[in-house]
């Protein structure tokens, strides 16, 4: 997701002279924080005797090489180290799962300080985060109650589903499409062919954005002199989250579903406080605040097996009284089929209502209208994946390819690249300078 703004008139700026101080919020004592992080990560690796359940995880070293250096901020190379460990335990009939992720990113700007951020509500991702911490309690033979911190999945990977699109993502790496886990309570059950699910997330987990003005979130500052920076204010997201209900049923080759949700939309609305802009020695600094709108939504989904294809149609109506968000009528049509050891998925999605603001500011609907084609396949040596996403409004798009080679059952080497192209007016084209290739080595256990 990209941000691009044309800011034309700023009469107050000339009067402002205070130096930008907000950026210091993200500075930290690197040495001591890294020491704590290393000690903590070492602790995670120890097979503690109390952990009688299953422990799995991986360690991964990833390197990125960008086609261009982003002026003044981002280097051409980036390193990313991850240590992930998961503990799964059956406590009688109750499933307990906990997982932790430790990370080190060579770009200090993309990573926050090591602090307690159990709900992922800080602006930047913490070097250590809880990915899972949940219990699933069977209430009876047909109903489960899950509570804690876990990830929801209501859509297709590499597709677009209006039921799933609003769920919070971490866009620190805008190409990764990483979902954030939620603190939530989920009751799911079934009665014959009918499946139902009720989810209540008592606290908002906001979308995490890349540093504004960086290569991953370029902002076109229009008439601003070069050197203008955007100062992200760490505003607190609302405490309440959202509630949702989902019903699904199968009738032979047909699957039918419906859902509804209400509450706080986790994607922020950005407010550029031009009235509080200040001039600095290098240009201007504009504070950017975030606010969160309430939204209600209902949707239907219908899928059917037609020959070799599974065809799925989804429609959703989203209502908001927020003047910047407005209403939306989103539809998607997708077709999926297996090819050998892989699948091909093509999705067409669009919003029938033009948003009041530039769609790129709305995150979960920024790419619309779009067509996405994804092809993945498992080979004897590993697997590969190709994704082509095209924005239909601005004629931009992105090609993404990745191949994973299984060196052994536990070692894997992955090579890949992302190639955004086209008009910088579009969300993909705006990432032109973020074209890159990457290589990763993972050791799983």
């Amino acid at each position: 997701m990209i941000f691009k703004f044309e800011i034309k008139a700023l009469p107050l700026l000339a009067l402002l002279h205070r130096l930008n101080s907000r950026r210091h919020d993200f500075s930290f004592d690197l040495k001591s924080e890294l020491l704590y992080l290393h000690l903590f990560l070492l602790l995670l690796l120890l097979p503690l005797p109390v952990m009688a359940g299953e422990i799995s995880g991986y360690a991964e070293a990833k390197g990125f090489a960008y086609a261009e250096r982003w002026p003044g901020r981002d280097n051409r190379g980036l390193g990313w180290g991850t240590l992930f460990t998961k503990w799964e335990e059956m406590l009688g009939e109750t499933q307990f799962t906990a997982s932790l992720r430790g990370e080190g990113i060579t770009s200090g700007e993309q990573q926050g300080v090591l602090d307690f951020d159990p709900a992922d509500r800080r602006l930047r991702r913490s070097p250590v985060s809880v990915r899972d911490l949940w219990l699933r309690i069977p209430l009876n033979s047909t109903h489960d109650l899950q509570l804690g911190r876990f990830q929801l999945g209501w859509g297709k990977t590499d597709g677009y589903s209006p039921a799933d699109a609003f769920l919070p993502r971490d866009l620190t790496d805008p190409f990764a499409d990483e979902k954030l886990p939620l603190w939530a309570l989920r009751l799911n059950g079934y009665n014959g062919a009918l499946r139902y699910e009720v989810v209540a997330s008592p606290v908002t987990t906001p979308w995490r954005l890349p540093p504004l003005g960086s290569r991953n979130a370029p902002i076109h500052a229009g008439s601003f002199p070069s050197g203008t920076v955007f100062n992200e204010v760490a505003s607190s997201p609302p405490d309440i989250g959202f509630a949702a209900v989902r019903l699904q049923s199968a009738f032979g080759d047909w699957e039918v579903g419906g859902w509804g949700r209400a509450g706080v939309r986790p994607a922020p609305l950005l407010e550029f406080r031009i009235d509080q802009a200040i001039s600095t020695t290098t240009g201007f600094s504009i504070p950017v605040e975030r606010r969160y709108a309430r939204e209600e939504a209902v949707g239907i989904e219908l899928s059917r097996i037609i020959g070799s294809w599974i065809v799925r149609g989804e429609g959703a109506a989203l209502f908001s009284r927020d003047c910047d968000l407005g209403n939306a009528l989103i539809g998607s049509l997708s077709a999926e089929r297996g090819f050998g050891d892989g699948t091909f998925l093509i999705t067409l999605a669009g919003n029938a209502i033009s948003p009041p603001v530039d769609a790129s500011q709305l995150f979960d609907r920024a790419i619309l209208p779009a067509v996405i084609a994804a092809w993945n396949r498992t080979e004897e040596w590993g697997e590969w994946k190709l994704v082509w996403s095209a924005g239909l409004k601005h004629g931009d798009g992105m090609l993404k390819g990745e191949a994973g080679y299984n060196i052994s059952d536990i070692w894997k080497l992955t090579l890949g690249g992302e190639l955004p192209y086209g008009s910088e007016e579009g969300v993909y084209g705006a990432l032109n300078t973020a074209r890159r290739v990457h290589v990763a080595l993972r050791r799983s256990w």
Partner: protein
Amino acid sequence: MYLTGKITKTLFLLALAALLATFSGLAFAADARALLKESESRHRTKTQQYAGELTVVNKEGKIRKKGWKSFREGYAGDAKNLIRFTDPPEVKGVGFLSVARPGAQNPDQWLYLPSMKRERRIATQDRDSSFVGTDFSYEDMEEFDHEKYKVELHGEQLVDSFPCYVIEAKPLEKKGKSTYEKKILFLRKDNLYLLREDLYRKGEKEPGKRMILSDLQQVGGHWVARKMEMKDLKKGSTTTVLLKEILFDKPQPVSRFTLQNLNREGGE
């Protein structure tokens, strides 16, 4: 007159031969069906579960290990299967559910991928695809139900030094679509246990795949092959499953074979 009598006699003999051939064919078919019915009757169990240790060896000899837990309720035409991968980390948690549709065509099949957090339905035509990087296809994961096949006895043959009935089974299109044109089954004569299955893809004269069951043992009063091999004769690869911790007729939870259970992350 003589000529007419000769023609009549020849026609009579031909008709008799045709009738005999037809009846003998029916007899073979009846024998094959009876054998398969008897085999199902002998080996039917209410439930079965085991832990499978898989070894996939490709043409170059590269070895990949996998592990799964398998649960079955019912048998043949009323079977429900759930498989959950336990190893390696790349596929851990992947689940597969197959539910027979009684009296109908192909079973319903779904695959659960932990990365997606939801299930994906397997279309009938996808059933030739490899099952999670093994030499089994989705269709191979179905229980064999002889009622969906036209069967015929093709004599006897030794398999692994055991005399076996050789039965040809051709899928009945009205009973479901198959990626195979025919299957040749080798049933051990003494206990009617399946020892080998040659699988012919459509339009092919040679078997494309071969399944071999060996290391037969009695567990809980039931015969079971502790070793199951699927050879892809075209690709030159083999998947071997060693069955461990086998249990028969253990009552399974009511919800075991449901989509809700398939979607249970970390569940069985």
